[in-house]
């Protein structure tokens, strides 16, 4: 069992806490000096960086939320001048505008190293051929895994998302040994391989690194048996760094968080109180090594729990369970984060469309589908089929360009959608993950 960074990954708890405190204090001093948003939030809470004398004092600090990122769009949360930023990524925002994150040269180095850790833990080494089937572009997933593989010394195939048959051809011909994608795409590939009559054993695949969306142990077993590989989970979010926050070791009993770079807390999403170790709640992350885009107590909205017990693999870092859901209404569709509010905004923008709508998310075979049902009103009732089709096409096109995920739009009878008493009725998620 290889460990990429044993000094840090197997650090005794006491030393780790000293290092975390040092880096936390330095991070707070920096953000207080360089980021107006943090300075104001700290002032509002009546706190200065000097008040943080121990890791437990972290709970005195205010949270950072997606809303803060939206208000400071695009560069307001950066802690260095833009000229020192060498990379910009973004992810979907709750409404309209995406959130923008930046990396300095050092940030990219640190990021690569963090990814190399969990890839090594998953079983990737310099002899591997890694096929990356995440979309390159503004999302952090593909680039993170790409850099991590290169740092390990593996051969990277920057395949990108989609084009399943070509993926399989490359997998066969280039003798791919490690596959990187969303778990649902792995199932798609497995199905297509079966349909094409290819014996999975004839492939060289040995390990899969799957992330970007929540998945179950049942799904892991399915992927492992159908593709004959070891399937591992990893966790990250672009607001915090992208992939590289945490990843599974061969024990597959939770994802090791790189604690020298992130402090993890679990809070009750309703009361915002920190919960004792082992409790299930919302994950809150504070970055310790980021230069361009430090994050203090970022509410990830992901529900999980932390296990501080020593792992059999020898790593001493805390492990987080597979994420069990969200504390907000965000949906993950085909690995893309979608907020109902984004769709609402598109519908509002289109003239005459009142927001009586419902989202139906389903999984046809292995791919997620999104259907948007809109109640017909006088304004959008068309006698002509042609006009109605044009309207639906327009909505679909706008949704697609806004979300990056295709949706089927359907008109339904007035008052056929139950009136919202809570957010839940806006969304029907038929997927059984």
């Amino acid at each position: 069992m290889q460990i990429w960074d044993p000094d840090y990954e197997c650090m005794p708890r006491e030393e780790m806490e000293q290092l975390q405190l040092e880096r936390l204090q330095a991070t707070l001093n920096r953000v207080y000096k360089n980021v107006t948003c943090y300075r104001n939030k700290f002032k509002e809470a009546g706190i200065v960086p000097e008040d943080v004398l121990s890791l437990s004092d972290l709970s005195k600090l205010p949270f950072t939320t997606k809303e803060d990122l939206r208000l400071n769009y695009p560069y307001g949360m950066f802690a260095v001048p833009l000229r020192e930023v060498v990379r910009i990524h973004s992810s979907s925002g709750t409404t309209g505008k995406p959130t923008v994150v930046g990396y300095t040269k050092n940030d990219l180095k640190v990021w690569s190293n963090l990814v190399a850790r969990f890839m090594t833990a998953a079983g990737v080494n310099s002899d591997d051929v890694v096929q990356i089937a995440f979309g390159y572009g503004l999302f952090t997933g593909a680039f993170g895994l790409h850099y991590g593989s290169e740092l390990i010394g593996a051969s990277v195939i920057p395949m990108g998302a989609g084009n399943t048959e070509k993926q399989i051809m490359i997998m066969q011909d280039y003798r791919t040994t490690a596959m990187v994608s969303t778990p649902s795409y792995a199932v798609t590939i497995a199905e297509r391989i079966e349909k094409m009559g290819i014996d999975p054993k004839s492939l060289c695949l040995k390990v899969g690194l799957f992330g970007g969306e929540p998945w179950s142990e049942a799904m892991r077993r399915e992927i492992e048996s159908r593709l004959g590989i070891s399937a591992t989970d990893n966790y990250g979010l672009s607001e915090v760094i992208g992939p590289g926050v945490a990843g599974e070791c061969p024990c597959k009993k939770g994802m090791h968080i790189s604690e020298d770079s992130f402090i993890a807390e679990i809070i009750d999403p309703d009361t915002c109180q920190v919960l004792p170790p082992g409790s299930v709640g919302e994950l809150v992350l504070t970055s310790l090594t980021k230069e361009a885009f430090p994050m203090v107590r970022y509410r990830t909205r992901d529900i999980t729990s932390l296990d501080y017990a020593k792992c059999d693999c020898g790593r001493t870092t805390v492990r987080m369970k597979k994420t069990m859901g969200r504390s907000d209404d965000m949906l993950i569709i085909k690995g893309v984060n979608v907020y109902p509010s984004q769709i609402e905004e598109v519908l509002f923008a289109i003239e005459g469309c009142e927001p009586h709508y419902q989202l139906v998310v389903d999984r046809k075979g292995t791919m997620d589908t999104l259907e948007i049902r809109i109640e017909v009103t006088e304004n959008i009732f068309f006698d002509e089929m042609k006009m109605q089709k044009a309207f639906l096409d327009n909505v679909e096109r706008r949704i697609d360009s806004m979300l990056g995920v295709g949706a089927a739009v359907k008109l339904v009878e007035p008052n056929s959608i139950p009136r919202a008493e809570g957010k839940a009725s806006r969304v029907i998620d038929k997927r059984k993950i």
Partner: protein
Amino acid sequence: MLKIKNLNTYYGKVHALKNVSLHLSKGEIVTLIGANGAGKTTLLNSLSAIIPAASGELLLEGKSIAGLPADRVVSLGLSQVPEGRQVFNPLTVEENLELGAYLRYRARGQQGAIKEDLQRMFAMFPRLEERRRQAAGTLSGGEQQMLAIGRALMARPKLLLLDEPSMGLAPLVVQDIFKVIQRLRSEEGTTILLVEQNARAALKVADRGYVLETGKVILEGVASELLENKDVQRAYLGRDKKEIWER
């Protein structure tokens, strides 16, 4: 080796060090960088009890050294090479070195060991042997720096604090001093906390570094990463020639 948590030091009402936390592992070279007045020397002086620390946890190999007098701190294994060398000018080189072992004279059976150490110092710094009977004040700056380092080593420290060892020295001599620092770690296994105005040279020999600004740590990192950090470059390394040309 050394662990500091929330160290605060005052000069009268001036809050010179604010919640400084740092650590050194055994055998590590760690450097403190920062502008003038950032608190680098204050930090070293607080550790060696030249200035009393107002509050904070100071652990040397797990033992608290907070509030101990300077001689106790030295006998526990921490020696400082002060800024500006501070050799005893009228005394000979040999006497200066022997004074470094002052605390050990009291202990029984140390006489022989002290003689041995003296020979070790002469082996490490042949120039000092050549000038062993010469008054320290007549040595060149570089030789005095070697002497100051040798004097500190005579106390057989586990942790050596070096304050601006290259200050006022010619570039070639500075190279020698940095070679000595590296040899101390590789040959003697000494753990070193280095304060240096020549941040680039310091970061090249160091494993890790802390950046101080107005009494606060604003950055901790692996030395090679700090070299790449723009804040560090801007403030403490000077601009690159290229950037000047672009302007």
